[in-house]
């Protein structure tokens, strides 16, 4: 099993978390929404697999490079 760490590409505030730990995702699925520069930006799954870690809450402020989720595939 390989795993991929998904990192936040920009600084922003989480407005919704769309998947939970253990969920199966396909490539391109929305993991969470991030508000930045007055826009809602979806963070997408780069690969299909199982989300083994996602620890985010709505309203949380994240920085570039912070871990968004880990996906095993």
């Amino acid at each position, binding site marked *: 099993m390989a795993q991929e760490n998904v990192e936040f*590409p*920009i600084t922003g505030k989480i407005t919704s978390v769309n998947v939970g730990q253990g969920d199966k995702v396909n490539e*391109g699925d929305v993991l969470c929404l991030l508000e930045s*520069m007055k*826009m809602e930006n*979806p963070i997408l799954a780069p690969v299909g697999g199982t989300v083994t870690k996602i620890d985010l809450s709505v309203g949380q402020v994240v920085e*570039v490079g912070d871990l968004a989720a880990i996906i095993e595939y």
Partner: protein
Amino acid sequence: MTGFFEIGFLNLTWGSVVMLIIGGVLLYLGISKKMEPLLLVPIGFGIVLVNLPLGGLMATIVQGEVYESYVIGGEPAGLISRVFQYGLVWELIPCFIFLGLGAMTDFGSLIANPKTLILGAGAQFGVYFAFFIALLLGFTIQEACSIGIIGGADGPTTIYLTNRLAPHFIGATAVAAYTYMALVPIIQPPVIKLLTTKKEREIYMKPQLRPVSKTEKILFPVMAAIIIILLVPKSAPLIGMFMFGNLLFVSGVTDRLADTAANAFMNILTILLGLCVGCFMSAESFLNVESLMVFALGVVAFATSTAFGVSLAKLMNVFSKEKINPMIGAAGVSAVPMAARVVQRMGQEANPRNFLLMHAMGPNIAGVIGTATAAGIFLGMVG
């Protein structure tokens, strides 16, 4: 008896009915489709109001006679014609909007990757292209400048320039510029797709841009204002306000002013501008061959700007080792942040790893500077 003839129904012309429908369509797009509602709702409602006969919102008095629609050089006598006169004809609103834009613009991505300035400049080719086409079609040089600038997709700059050079076109060019800004998500993607392969759209760009220090951020607006205004003096009102707004934003000691400029002040200006633009679109000012040609040429200008931006990004890739995603060239038109958002969405669609928003903001902001500078050049040339 006169009271009876004052009833609006009897004075409806087919032209005002057409305009009422256009106003309704804009309201529908803004409200139901959520397409740039902050622009389309005020414009749409303005169109509806002004095309109801005898309302007098845009009334002007010329030599003692009252005209229903705005007449350049007349004395404003209606609610919106007064705002129009002192806000737009006096050029206050477009310049102050640039102040607000500056206060909400983060130049970080541009400073971190100054190469993207070139893309913002490249996308201005559409402006000159449409300028020449308009000249060939028999418009005067002043009119051609005003039509070309629509290609920059920058409402305030278009209004500013048209007002100086071809004031009789202000309704048509302003509406064209704002409509195309709202239609960025529809006009740009086909042009981008036509010019790029799927592989190019998939090109991944690393998210981490070089961190930009506070000193750089403060020096940028000051230096940029000095250099651009020395080079193109006529751009001073727009660029000066833009950079001043940005200085308020980055200085760290004027947050209160920056906050007002970017939010409350900007909202007030948007309401006034939207209503003014909408109210200028009465049937008699708008439904004529010239206005419709301005509209058609505007979309040519805008599509060409997009095409040049993308092509220039592809050209840069030939010479540079670290490949950029050519789509960010399309963000060189100055519709901030609509164009950057389009690139972001298309980038993610092609490759879910991609996150081009910050990369696209560089050319996008450079585009604003580019269009304002192009306007300054036109003014210097023929103003």
